[in-house]
């Protein structure tokens, strides 16, 4: 089962890269580094806070260089665990746009989330539903998101210290406001390592195809690297 996922994931990843390199319109290349801290208070409650930034390298289309830090953000979530590995969360995010540019912007985001996790041996499947209210300096937007992801250790059924794991997922994001709507698909594939109990690093590549319901297509290839602390 795990080898099947590794093979399928690798093939998909190679296909994606081949497609990207040969595509007429080149994707925008970005990198998002981040830190995440999660405190499990008891068997029911957990809190998370994370800080992320985004570095843009190129624009979509001709692939011209556009080297700038286009945002930074701080997020907080409170999560309550229900019986049956179901979790409900409420989150708030503050995002600053173009922090080093003459004109900056901001966003306040409120998130409601319902997630349920299932385990099949070493493989874990997570389903995540989100509703977001995005209050931005220039407009307001509501988003509905559904994500499915799976991660599994590469050695045995349990993820032990010093071991690597793979993660893959897909997310659909539908955004709308009074002006219009937009559908985006985010396909991701990554690898992580548990350094020691409560500390892991994850690197993944996300292929974002946006504006799927209009002709104004956009493609972003985003590299994400996050160091997770949990205790």
């Amino acid at each position, binding site marked *: 089962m795990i080898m099947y996922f590794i093979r399928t994931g690798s093939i998909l990843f190679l296909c994606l890269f081949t497609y990207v390199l040969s595509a007429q319109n080149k994707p925008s290349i970005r990198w998002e580094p981040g830190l995440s801290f999660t405190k499990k208070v008891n068997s029911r409650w957990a*809190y998370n806070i*994370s800080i992320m930034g985004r570095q843009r390298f190129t624009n979509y289309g001709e692939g011209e260089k556009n080297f700038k830090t286009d945002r930074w953000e701080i997020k907080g979530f409170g999560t309550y665990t229900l019986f049956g590995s179901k979790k409900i969360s409420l989150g708030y995010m503050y995002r600053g746009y173009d922090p080093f540019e003459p004109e900056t912007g901001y966003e306040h985001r409120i998130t409601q989330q319902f997630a349920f996790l299932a385990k099949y041996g070493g493989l874990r499947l997570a389903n995540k539903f989100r509703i977001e209210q995005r209050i931005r300096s220039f407009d307001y937007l509501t988003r509905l998101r559904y994500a499915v992801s799976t991660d599994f250790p590469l050695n045995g059924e349990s993820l032990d210290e010093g071991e690597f794991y793979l993660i893959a997922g897909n997310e659909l994001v539908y955004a709308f406001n009074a002006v219009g709507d937009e559908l985006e698909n985010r396909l991701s594939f990554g690898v992580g390592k548990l350094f020691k109990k409560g500390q892991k690093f994850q690197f993944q590549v996300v292929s974002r195809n946006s504006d799927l319901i209009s002709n104004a297509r956009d493609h972003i290839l985003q590299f994400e690297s996050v160091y997770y*602390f949990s205790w």
Partner: protein
Amino acid sequence: MARFQLISILLFAFLLTFNFSVLAQNEGEKIEREVSIKKEEFPEKALKLASPILKKAKKTKYYKEISEAGDYFEFKSHYKGEKISVKFNDKGELIDIEIIRVLSDFPDNIQKAITQYFKENYEKYRLTRIQIQYNREQEYEDGELEIDDDDEYIEEFLEMDLEDLIIKYEIEAEVKTKDNDTGFFEFLFNDKGELEMKRIIISRADDNVLY
């Protein structure tokens, strides 16, 4: 500027509130480290002993389990249409044999005793993994403790000589206590359906799939 100061204060407060102390390990935690190994790394004595099972087994995977109690070796296979795991110590001596089952496979009195245990002790429960465990017979004869050797033990298992094997039931379950706590535990019941051991299962952190 005021905005950055506010965020810095919030972050500092968060880090102070949630100090980085490592969680003390509770008594009865299931702490094991399992690594995949090649067949060649498995104790030769164990492979020889288990050869009647291995000959008929499919999709066999070999593991080394590192725990506080010592190192163990385990193979997991599909044997006669069932998922089997056979565990040995580092000397290649047989520890136990487990087969994945469903509760309805067990005798009525065992099903009833196990169900009653969960109903009496928990508000809610969900059985996530059920295994029958075949252990080596140990009995007193003429005042002396007689323990089956490895060959007798495996032979009794192959012949399904249930009178000469000690049966136990290993169950992993998610439970909700009457105090509204939830968690995953491993329970071991004896051949009468009485609880012998209970230990908490530490689940993998889900921060990377949740946030």
